């Protein structure tokens, strides 16, 4: 059984459709990256998964329980941080944990709290008031409260925000460790580098639609060599690219970048020359995952993948 399953999930607010027919599945033991620029619908999707927002259409099930018809059972499977870990700043870290442990209905509360304190390494300051914490310390406490109920699915929204390099390193180690104990982890981020290092699979979301879902290794393998084309003027060339639905990035007034293999680039150049477009140079470039992400989510690229 999948840890998380979204089927045909749509959310409309007023007349605006925020999320379009989203489908995704996360399996146990998998670390799943949910990638997209700001405003692409990541947080709305997460809020629907944890029952803060009702989907207009479609179903969401967690460990086989429907989030709407079996809300309590579904939520019992989840540990989560939605956006920033907003905790009660006038309480100590420990009191915050007691607060959330009571709501999670844990049988052996005290022991479990000690366990998670150990896991995220916050023993040093857990008895201080949260208002004295740095953002990184809050993130750790946020993670601790998410782990309290022994979740089967961990949903984390931008979890490394505010963590220092050492903190990020510890965090990755912890996530990999949790995944090895068969916990499914769902991580949203707008930083590809973060996802690249932690996740098994990644979905890229843009304007409320999943535009690609694949394993991180295949994403890395796809680092097809792109080409930079220098032209006298890019206006005509870019409109041709748009017509032919070829994704590209405008680097500057004279440079366009396309993601095509060699034969197709030759074909393109031949076509551009036949249209009397002056080409200064064509250079192969080594593309990073970051570039690919930019191409996939750029507005100029037209439709990327059906």
């Amino acid at each position: 059984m999948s840890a998380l399953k979204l089927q045909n999930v749509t959310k409309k607010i007023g007349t605006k459709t925020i999320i379009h027919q989203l489908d995704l599945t996360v399996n146990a033991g998998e670390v799943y990256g949910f990638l997209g620029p700001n405003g692409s619908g990541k947080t709305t999707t997460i809020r629907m998964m944890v029952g803060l927002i009702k989907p207009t259409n479609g179903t969401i099930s967690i460990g086989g329980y429907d989030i709407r018809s079996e809300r309590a059972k579904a939520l019992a499977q989840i540990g989560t941080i939605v956006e920033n870990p907003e905790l009660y700043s006038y309480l100590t870290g420990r009191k915050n944990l007691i607060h959330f442990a009571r709501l999670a209905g844990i049988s052996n509360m005290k022991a479990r709290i000690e366990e998670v304190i150990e896991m995220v390494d916050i023993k040093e300051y857990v008895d201080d008031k949260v208002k004295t914490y740095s953002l990184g310390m809050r993130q750790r406490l946020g993670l601790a409260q998410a782990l309290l109920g022994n979740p089967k699915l961990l949903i984390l929204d931008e979890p490394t925000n505010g963590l220092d390099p050492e903190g990020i390193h510890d965090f990755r180690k912890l996530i990999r460790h949790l995944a090895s104990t068969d916990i499914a982890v769902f991580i949203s981020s707008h930083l590809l580098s973060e996802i690249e290092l932690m996740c098994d699979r990644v979905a890229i979301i843009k304007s409320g639609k999943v535009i690609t879902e694949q394993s991180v290794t295949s994403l890395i393998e796809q680092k097809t060599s792109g080409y930079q084309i220098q032209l006298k003027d890019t206006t005509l060339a870019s409109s041709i690219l748009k017509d032919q639905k070829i994704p590209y990035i405008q680097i500057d007034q004279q440079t366009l970048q396309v993601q095509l293999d060699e034969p197709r680039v030759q074909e393109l150049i031949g076509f551009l020359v036949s249209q009397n477009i002056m080409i200064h140079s064509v250079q192969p470039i080594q593309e990073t995952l970051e570039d690919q992400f930019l191409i996939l989510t750029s507005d100029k690229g037209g439709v990327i993948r059906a």
Partner: protein
Amino acid sequence: MHELSRVMANEFMKLIHRLRMWFTVGLMLVVAIGLSVSGYMNYQNSLNSYSQASRQQVLGTQEQNLKKLEQELKDKKSSRKPSDIKKEIAVVRADIQSWKGLMQKEQQIRFGDWKTFFKNDLQKRTRDLKNSKLNVASAAKLEGKRLQMEYQLQHDERPLLLTEKSSYQATNEQMTNMSRIFLSILVVILVADMMSSETTHGTIKLLLVRPVSRLKIFFGKWLVSLTITLILGLGCFIVLFLTNLALYGSHGAFQPNFLGVSYSPMYVNDVNPGALNEHARLTLVPNYEHVTIIPDWQFIIFKACLNTLSMMVVATIVFLCSTAFRSSMISTSASLAVVVLGNLFQWTGFIDKFSKWVTGVTSNTYPILFTVAFLSLFSIVAVILASRHFNRRDVLNA
């Protein structure tokens, strides 16, 4: 049920760790004790003019006046007419007479056989009541006095003199002052951000993603709001009473007090009863028809309970504001506006009915049971509607 109690335990934990909780309690203590002490100081000041010594002094001056006037009458050289002087002498004599009468009456009540004295007085008053020449207001006043005296005779309870104010009387007066607006404001400070602070600070997201239903969170918070109001209200009245008890002493617990006096506005004519001419004036006339007489100690307990109950209705309204508005500041202002406007307008006069009914400064339009039933029904319906809304709404931006 178990989950609800855990939600409530959480809410109490959050409440006692917040500064505003202790600020409210501190304010309540300062005001309750301050009010009692300042009331006691006023009373001490007024005691001087009631004291035996000051009365003797007044009597002495009046007697000297009399001597002077009598001498003036004998003195032929006086510029005034003898008939004028005689008139003045008569006035001073009557004054002296009434002073002596008052002092004698007090002495009689305080040290003598007050019962015989009262029985005679009662007979006189009953006779007076039958006298048709009395207007409605005076008749009602006499009737009230008569009922009170009957009770005192029946229960062998010596009436208190003006110099013997009891802690019960003081508490009764101060309770009315406290519950008008001060306690409502304390309730606003405590309850107004019960829900909205969670929305403002975003903690509502972590609260609502637990396997506890939203309804339980809602009702848990509501019940905690009611409980803290109950503790605060009763606590305030207890502090008030204990301070007064320390200041005035424990006497006067069994003095009679009226419950359910209704007042209706009537035209009263002092010169010609019943006639609606230029001497008629509009005044509130008490009606003792459905009155119950209970001892003072019961009266203040009853009053404290009803006042606290009406505070809980206020707490419910404030809690609903807290759920409706997502910003703490707006929900607090809205609650304050409701409380202040409520005091200005008649409809919360209805809400405040409990205390008004007890203090009796209103016409008897609604009986108490009807009021209790109406307010309970109103609160329950409002809370159910709000909880349904809370249960369904999307948490979009918090």
